[in-house]
């Protein structure tokens, strides 16, 4: 029997994105057309749930991250946080709202995303001053030290600069400064892709441990599917701005139903299958600029494409057990 998704246990999910879209006007020769970065996407994250978001570059993962973190304004759609609409105010106003601290992001490259002239202490203290408006030096010091301890950063490193730290230590600083304001939702954008495999497991375990101890929800964005399955209970697969498949992680890996998910899983390097010829996804995605709303976005690369794929855009269809896919033949 398959467990229900964790959000089903709660009447109100922590985060509920409804019909979210982000369209960018195109400049130059195609002026007047729109680039559909994220197109009519629903995404729910339950309290304490860890949801993986996967897909190739250009599929809208990063735009989703920036929309959900309210770093950019959606073109249409709503984001409800604990039932409260946080899209009512513009991104510029949201920066100053108390809700700002409820969603935090751990960025991809810990070296690129830390200010090189900030000591570790300042890097972690900055969100306390800016988002929680704390000014009491003792309280800030207490909170910074608590966050540093939580992520396993030795006390003596707190006065160092990023260049004096190893990659794994920098990753810990990136996590510490995100959790110091005690967010409810932590968005992790490829948090281990810049790390060596030798420290990857430590950071992943740290993230799993923090989630259990602090009761946070995670949106885990990654292209490494073997890492996604370690941390997440549910996976959302995106292709060209659309969600094409959603499901519990083990079920989705064992029985992917959308042809794109199938290709994605078949592409994971696997020494055990080195003598096998596996299906490959060649070619490039079709253009995200003014796509035909009646044509399946994956149709041009799909091994199963048929006549109805160019006349009707498939909608997400419930396949049971919490899994759904947007394919006529799934």
């Amino acid at each position, binding site marked *: 029997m398959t467990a229900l998704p964790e959000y089903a246990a709660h009447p109100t999910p922590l985060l509920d994105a409804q019909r979210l879209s982000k369209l960018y006007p195109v400049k130059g020769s195609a002026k007047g057309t729109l680039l559909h970065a994220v197109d009519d996407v629903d995404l729910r994250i339950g309290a304490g749930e860890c949801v993986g978001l996967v897909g190739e*570059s250009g599929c809208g993962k990063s735009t989703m991250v920036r929309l959900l973190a309210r770093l950019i304004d959606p073109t249409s759609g709503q984001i409800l946080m604990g039932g409260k609409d946080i899209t009512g105010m513009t991104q510029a106003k949201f920066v100053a709202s108390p809700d700002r601290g409820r969603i935090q992001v751990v960025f991809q490259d810990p070296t690129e995303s830390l200010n090189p002239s900030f000591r570790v202490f300042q890097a972690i203290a900055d969100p306390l001053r800016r988002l929680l408006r704390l000014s009491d030096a003792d309280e800030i010091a207490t909170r910074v030290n608590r966050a540093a301890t939580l992520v396993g950063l030795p006390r003596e490193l707190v006065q160092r600069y990023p260049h004096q730290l190893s990659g794994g230590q920098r990753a810990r600083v990136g996590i510490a400064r995100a959790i110091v304001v005690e967010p409810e939702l932590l968005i992790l954008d490829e948090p281990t892709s810049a790390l060596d*495999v*030798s420290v990857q*497991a430590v950071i992943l375990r740290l993230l799993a441990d923090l989630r259990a101890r602090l009761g946070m929800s995670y949106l885990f964005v990654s292209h490494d599917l073997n890492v996604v399955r370690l941390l997440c209970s549910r996976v959302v697969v995106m292709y060209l701005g659309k969600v094409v498949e959603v499901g519990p992680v083990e079920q989705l890996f064992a029985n992917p139903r959308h042809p794109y998910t199938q290709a994605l899983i078949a592409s994971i*390097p696997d020494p055990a299958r*080195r003598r096998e010829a596996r299906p*490959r996804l060649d070619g490039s995605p079709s253009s995200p600029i003014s796509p035909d709303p009646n044509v399946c976005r994956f149709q041009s690369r799909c091994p199963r494409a048929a006549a109805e794929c160019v006349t009707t855009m498939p909608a997400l269809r419930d396949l049971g057990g919490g899994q759904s896919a947007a394919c006529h033949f799934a």
Partner: protein
Amino acid sequence: MTDHLTIKDLGLEFRTRHGVVRALEDVSLTVKRGEIVGVVGESGSGKSVMAYSVMGLSDAAAEIKRGSIVLGGMDLLATKGEALRAIRGREMAMIFQSPRTALNPIRKVGRQIEDVLMEHEAIPRRDLRKAAIAALERVRIPDPERRYDAYPFELSGGMCQRVMIAIALACSPSLLIADEPTTGLDVTTQAVIMDLIRDKSRDGRMSTLLITHDLGLAGEYCDRIVVMHAGHVVEVAPTEVLLSRPAHPYTLQLLAATPTPTSTLDTLPSIGGQLPDLRRDLPPCRFSERCARKLPQCDVPPLPWTTLSPDHIVRCRVPL
């Protein structure tokens, strides 16, 4: 198969303001004709430094102290200037990490292929364009006639990497060095690019040195794997042997730390400690400070090579 590339006892140092970094020590490896050899290890293990010294592209601060690099009977370390330029791009070629930075951003990609052809092949000027388009076609770039006129920024990361492979393969080199060719690419693109490199190696009888931090990737595509740690080669074995019966404790730990479809967070280990500071005086085994199996004799030089089978060697006093 005969050895095509032979690196023997290579020692390389960097002179820096903070002291001498002994980046490579006693590095030996061979690549046979038509073989794909993987070089794996953490960042800082010396994989790329080794690759760059084969290409003669080492940093100005690098100094090769010992050893030899021989390609098809030619001593590469004794080859300099024009003679080296004549080989580079023709006999041996390299695919660099991050194709977008390696390509010239203000030159059409077709032109960049022509540059290599012009340097090394006696192709009449009027046929260059056709040859460049054919090179794009060989790496399965759709619509090559139109892509010829594209600038790198107009192409996706996967397409840029194909262009770089097209440049590398333009003169049918006998040795291809691929330095993390798919880092930053999507898994779906990675699979297509790696299949392409494998097919080209196979039908061109080209030797390939694949530098990667991903043991899963090396395991799927390589015939043999060389494991490096802190500037040392610690183990060399055929892929199946290395994956099923690793003999060096570091290889075992690298394998265990690589997530697989059956890993769980509770069982996935990490590797303790860090790479040692290569400016210090180091013990004969540079892994000993991170090794749980360390014995007193590990500190006694010299560190021996143990031959487990003719093609499986390990640099450890007490192999697994």
